[in-house]
């Protein structure tokens, strides 16, 4: 099954050193320690027929992905909250300081560039469709492309 192949490939990439480090650091609370190569891998996909919910199967997949992203965003906010609280407890950075932070021009420019690049990357799907629809440099059909390579 596909899931087996995938998990085995992931397992092979895991560094052994990471496990040793984690073992050293292990305290009462569990540490982030990726499973070592060769350790048992569990399945992530249930056996059974997967129902379809929307007329277009792509919508099913998009909803699947957006809930996963929502989960990871929630995890990231929780983690950021830990960092902010630890910084405040150690008196390094207070939460008021973060809320009131105003960057200088250089920081603002860097942040703005990064933000724009992120938006551009996320919106590329729509741009590709637009380019195709308006014929800007895009072949009008698959046949056109096939004809070009068969010449």
């Amino acid at each position, binding site marked *: 099954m596909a899931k087996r192949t995938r998990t085995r490939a992931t397992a092979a990439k895991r560094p052994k050193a990471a496990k040793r480090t984690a073992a050293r650091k292990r305290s009462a609370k*569990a540490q982030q320690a990726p499973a070592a190569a060769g350790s048992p891998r569990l399945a992530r996909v249930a056996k059974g027929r997967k129902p379809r919910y929307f007329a277009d199967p792509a919508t099913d997949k998009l909803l699947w992905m957006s809930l996963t992203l929502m*989960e990871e965003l*929630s995890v990231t906010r929780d983690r950021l909250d830990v960092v902010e609280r630890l910084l405040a407890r150690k008196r390094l950075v207070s939460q008021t300081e973060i809320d009131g932070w105003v960057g200088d021009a250089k920081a603002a420019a860097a942040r703005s560039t990064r933000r724009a690049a992120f938006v551009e990357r996320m919106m590329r799907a729509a741009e590709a469709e637009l380019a195709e629809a308006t014929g800007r440099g895009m072949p009008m059909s698959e046949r056109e492309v096939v004809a070009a390579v068969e010449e």
Partner: protein
Amino acid sequence: MPAFKQHPMVPQTTHDEQARQDFVSALRGHLSGRLMPGAYQVYAARVEPAFRSKHGRSPKDEHEVRHAMTEDPYYQFWSAMQRRSQELLWESVIDPTERQLPELINRARTLGKRGRGKRRGTLRLDPKLVVPKYHTAADIHLQPGGYHTDFTADDVAAGAVYDKGINLYMGGALGEENNLTGDTLLAYVREKHPSLQLHSILDLGCAIGNSTVVWARAFPKARVHGIDVGAPVLRYAHARAQALGVPVDFSQQNAERTDFADGSFDLVLSHIVLHETSKSALTRVLAECRRLLKPGGLMLHLEIPRGRTDIEKFMHNWESYNNNETFSRYMTDLDLKAETIKAGFAADAVLVDEFAPKLDVAQMNYTEHFLWKILAAFKR
């Protein structure tokens, strides 16, 4: 809501693993508490009226409701999210289990040897047991690998995943030791049959023994057995019961035909198990219960309600069509009393009862009106 109890067999979580489980709880609480009731509202407000104007009548059964509802955008959205929330639930528990699996297996081995004499539980596995098709055809509740898959030698993963998973599934309502189902049947016995003398108890389809332990605690002098077809859940059940200091005898057996002698038990019971079997298995399980009971013994099966109206039946059967509880749809209109009589019990010794739980709507998943169904029968 009491927090889930961290006994030694529960995998530890890192910050992010815990945050994922917390997210799953929040998501499912919202889906059940806020969005699920909306499915009933859109049915009343537009789906049923549209059906009526097209056909000149209301949907005649649950299936016509299904055809109409699965076309409704609100229902589609809730349903797709409910499905994904179930997958996320297992993923959030599988990650920490997999990461600590070798340690958990070692801990299970050590705990298995703890205790002596009467205070020590036992575990008997049967590698030759054929896991029934109703488990192997599709993973029940979407738990990858189900109750029965061993991913490695002496595996306990299915048990660890199930323990935390079912707690998240009910938004913590199953209790700190997932004891709600056991407590419910125990409360029923105490209320309806207070004078019952129990020396031997058998729990069918016990999985991780979460309900079995409730009975063993309530009747410390009784011999309590738990059986299941899944080896990894039983290894976990044994280690868990040992960790909790509760002696239970677990064995890997199919409830359709066990190796216990005739008339071995005063009480044979199951906790939300019957709907995970099959048409033919159900008849065999009921007949086996009768064989195993002493004269005067009691059979009890706790089951989830299947709905009174067609829209309720449709919503309850979400589990059947979307969560691999395939057999549960056949139980919607099944006459459990007739099935029990068919299995050999006297007609006047069988009762299909209802029993109210103390739950909040955010933990109900598919309905705001929840009554446990209890099948009770005495052996003459």
